[in-house]
């Protein structure tokens, strides 16, 4: 239930400086860590937490993430961070202050062995010590009703944290910090006036550009794609998908195109068509005859030997003969409706059937 967190503790950044440099450094470091893991949270000045599972899969192991984080803190702030790994924010912070990386499953015994003072309430700690309870574990073993009798409501949350039922202490997060960081970046308040007029680039365009850059850094240069239309008859020819940032194509879809397949078009158009088999009710292969008719009405569509679907309706085929002046390419399109209610677009080319679109 509580997830494995990496807490990053930078001692030099936890004291507020009067000129605001600490806050600025904190914000820069948050940006740097967000590049490593987008779910990095800033907890307090000088303390960050990030979930470890996703990044360690991505970087190839927890050690690699820890190294990357350590390097980036060093590069950005020039200070050495303390790193701690444990389940839940409370234990992760305590582990970070001691520079401990707990094995998974070791969090419970670690928490129980801690001294009561880590819970941060002197009154509770002193009273318990007088009763002979020195560790978090012995406090956790108390009955919740007894704790509620002796202390006020706040002690009950401590008790829940001590038992591991709650992952973080009440005052552990600085709730005003997020707002201050937003103010620092000048993005407080959700503005709607970000549209560019007459081709002018608005603030929204710049934001989108920054975000696209970030995804590209994570997944590779051609991870982000933009789409455009060009001339053509069938949906799979009219679509162009190019990596974001490549020069825009000059060909635009403006002029009417004779023989264009009319809407609706499939919401999924496969970039690489999938070979399928179309058979009639007696399980015979259906072929396109030379004059553009089907040999038999289709009855079954086979995606593989296991996956077969009954065809309840079909339209077409609509033959296309293109580039007859050079290399001729003969295709025919067919719409089919399956018994499951799905509608598909198929083509016949080179005497085979291909799935090219799904009306998803």
């Amino acid at each position, binding site marked *: 239930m509580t997830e494995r967190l990496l807490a990053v503790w930078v001692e030099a950044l936890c004291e507020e400086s009067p000129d605001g440099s600490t806050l600025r450094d904190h914000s820069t470091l948050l940006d740097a860590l967000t590049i490593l893991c987008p779910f990095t949270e800033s907890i307090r000045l000088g303390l960050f937490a990030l979930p470890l599972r996703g990044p360690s899969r991505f970087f190839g192991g927890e050690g690699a993430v820890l190294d990357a984080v350590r390097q980036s803190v060093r590069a950005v702030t020039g200070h050495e961070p303390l790193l701690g790994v444990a389940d839940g924010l409370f234990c992760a912070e305590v582990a970070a202050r001691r520079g401990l990386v707990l094995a998974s499953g070791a969090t419970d015994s670690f928490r129980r062995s801690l001294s009561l003072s880590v819970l941060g309430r002197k009154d509770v700690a002193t009273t318990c010590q007088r009763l002979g309870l020195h560790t978090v574990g012995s406090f956790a073993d108390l009955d919740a009703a007894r704790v509620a009798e002796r202390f006020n409501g706040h002690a009950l949350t401590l008790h829940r944290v001590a038992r591991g039922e709650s992952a973080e202490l009440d005052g552990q997060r600085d709730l005003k910090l997020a707002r201050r960081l937003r103010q620092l970046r000048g993005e407080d308040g959700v503005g709607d006036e970000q549209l560019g007029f007459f081709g002018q680039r608005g603030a929204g365009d710049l934001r989108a550009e920054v975000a696209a850059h970030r995804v590209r850094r994570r997944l590779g240069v051609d991870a982000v794609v933009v789409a455009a239309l060009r001339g053509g008859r069938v949906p799979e020819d009219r679509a162009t998908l190019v990596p974001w940032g490549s020069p825009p194509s000059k060909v635009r879809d403006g002029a009417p195109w004779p023989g264009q397949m009319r*809407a609706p078009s499939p919401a999924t158009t496969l970039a690489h068509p999938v070979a399928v088999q179309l058979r009639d009710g007696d399980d015979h292969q259906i072929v396109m005859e030379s004059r553009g008719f089907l040999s038999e009405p289709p009855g079954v569509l086979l995606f593989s030997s296991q996956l077969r679907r009954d065809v309840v309706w079909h339209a077409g085929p609509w033959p296309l003969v293109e580039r007859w002046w050079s290399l001729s390419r003969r295709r025919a399109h067919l719409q089919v*409706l399956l018994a499951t209610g799905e509608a598909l677009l198929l083509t016949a080319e080179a005497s085979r059937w291909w799935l090219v679109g799904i009306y998803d």
Partner: protein
Amino acid sequence: MFAFSVKRPTLPTDVVATLRPVALAKSRMLPLGEPWRALVPGGGLRRGSTVVVQAPPGLGGLSLALSLLTESSARGHWAGVVGVDDPGVVAIADLGVDLRRVLFVPRPRGAWAESAADLLDGVDLLIVRPPSRASHGAARRLMDRVRERGTVLIALAESGAPWPLPADLSFDVTQAQWATSSRLDARYLTVRVGGRGAAVRGGEHVVVLPNRRGRCEAG
């Protein structure tokens, strides 16, 4: 006139912050096109909210999610689409989405949640289709981030692998029926609109998606 001028004290910054006009309630909503405007409480998508679109595989879930983008896209808002491997560009354009302001991340591999979080800062609406069932933790983190950033998250789920957390607004496709002539003409989707708060009152509606022009209209 005066021998000296009184130096005007500067306003403390926090007072300046409080004097700044607050965002109007209207700008907290992203507009919806027909027919959704009439079917959704408030007539738009609240910034920071999560919308779940759920449909049996192949029965119009993707078209429905895309149709929620149209009006915002036409007004200049950016949209992102993560995890839709082979977007049907013609169908998206026919719906009325401005392709110049849509960023696609077709195959995010294992990093769908991370790339979604990366894109969140730069777009106003984000469609996410997780490759398999989304984990509880990833969904919660994404929804928290969306709330913080004021984006609208549209999570696209199949009936077999539902979105693990309750959404602010949900569209459930319960039935899809094609009208045919000599070709596929139009599809009638029965959609149950639900969600939290004011959205709970929603009921079942029939919409045509796509119609003969590839757009969305009331049934």
